[in-house]
C-alpha cells in the first residue's frame, strides 16, 4: 500500500482536470492505496464551492468529491489564500472579513501550503492534475 497526495490545480468546469483527479483518486483507493489528502490549489478551489447547483440530470462533481471524502475519510483541503481570492470562504473566514455569507462546508476544509509540504514528506507520490 502506498501513500498518495492528489493536487487539483484547475477549475471543475471548463477543464477536465478535477474530474480526472477524482477518477484517479477512486482508482487509487480501489487498488488499496491510501490517499493522504486531496489538495485543491489555484483554480482547483472552485471545485469546493458548496453553492454549485448543476442540473439534476447532470454529473455533480462537487457531490462526487464530497462523497469520496466522507466515504473513504480522505481529507479534502483547500489552499486558503487561493480560495479567499476566488471567493470561496468558510464560515470562519467570512466572519473575519465581516461578510454575511460563506460557501465552504465540511468535509472540505481550509489549509495552507504548509500542509501540502508536510503531507509530501509522508507521501510516496504527489500526482497533480
Amino acid at each position: 500500500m502506498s501513500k498518495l497526495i492528489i493536487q487539483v490545480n484547475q477549475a471543475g468546469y471548463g477543464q477536465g482536470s478535477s474530474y480526472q483527479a477524482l477518477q484517479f483518486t477512486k482508482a487509487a483507493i480501489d487498488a488499496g492505496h491510501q490517499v493522504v489528502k486531496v489538495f485543491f490549489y489555484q483554480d482547483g478551489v472552485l471545485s469546493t464551492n458548496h453553492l454549485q447547483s448543476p442540473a439534476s440530470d447532470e454529473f455533480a462533481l462537487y457531490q462526487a468529491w464530497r462523497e469520496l471524502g466522507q466515504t473513504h475519510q480522505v481529507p479534502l483541503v483547500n489552499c486558503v489564500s487561493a480560495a479567499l481570492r476566488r471567493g470561496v470562504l468558510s464560515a470562519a473566514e467570512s466572519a473575519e472579513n465581516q461578510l454575511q455569507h460563506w460557501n465552504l462546508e465540511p468535509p472540505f476544509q481550509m489549509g495552507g501550503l504548509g500542509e501540502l509540504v508536510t503531507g509530501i514528506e509522508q507521501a510516496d507520490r504527489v500526482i497533480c492534475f
Partner: protein
Amino acid sequence: MILHIVQYSATQDNALATCLRYIKPQDTLLLLGDGVNALLLQKWQHALADTQICLLEQDVVARGLQSRLGQYKQLSQAEFVHYTLTHAKVITW
C-alpha cells in the same frame, strides 16, 4: 525513470513541447484528456516517434479515437495508478 503527464491539447498549451525538451529515453509520456489529440497530427507523431507513449483509455474512447490511436498503449485508471508507483517520479506539465 519519470512518468510525464500532459493533459492539455498541444495546439492550445505548450505543456507537450516543454515536456519534450526534458524527457529522457527511459521515461514514459502519458497523454490524458485533450493531450491525446496531439497524436492525430503528423508533426507530433514524428516528434514522439522515439518516446515511450501511453494514453488514458477512457479519454481515447470519450473522443471516439480508438481506431485512429489503436497502435498506442492505452491504460485503464488502475494501470494509471500503477504507473505512478512504478516510476520514480511523476511530473504533470
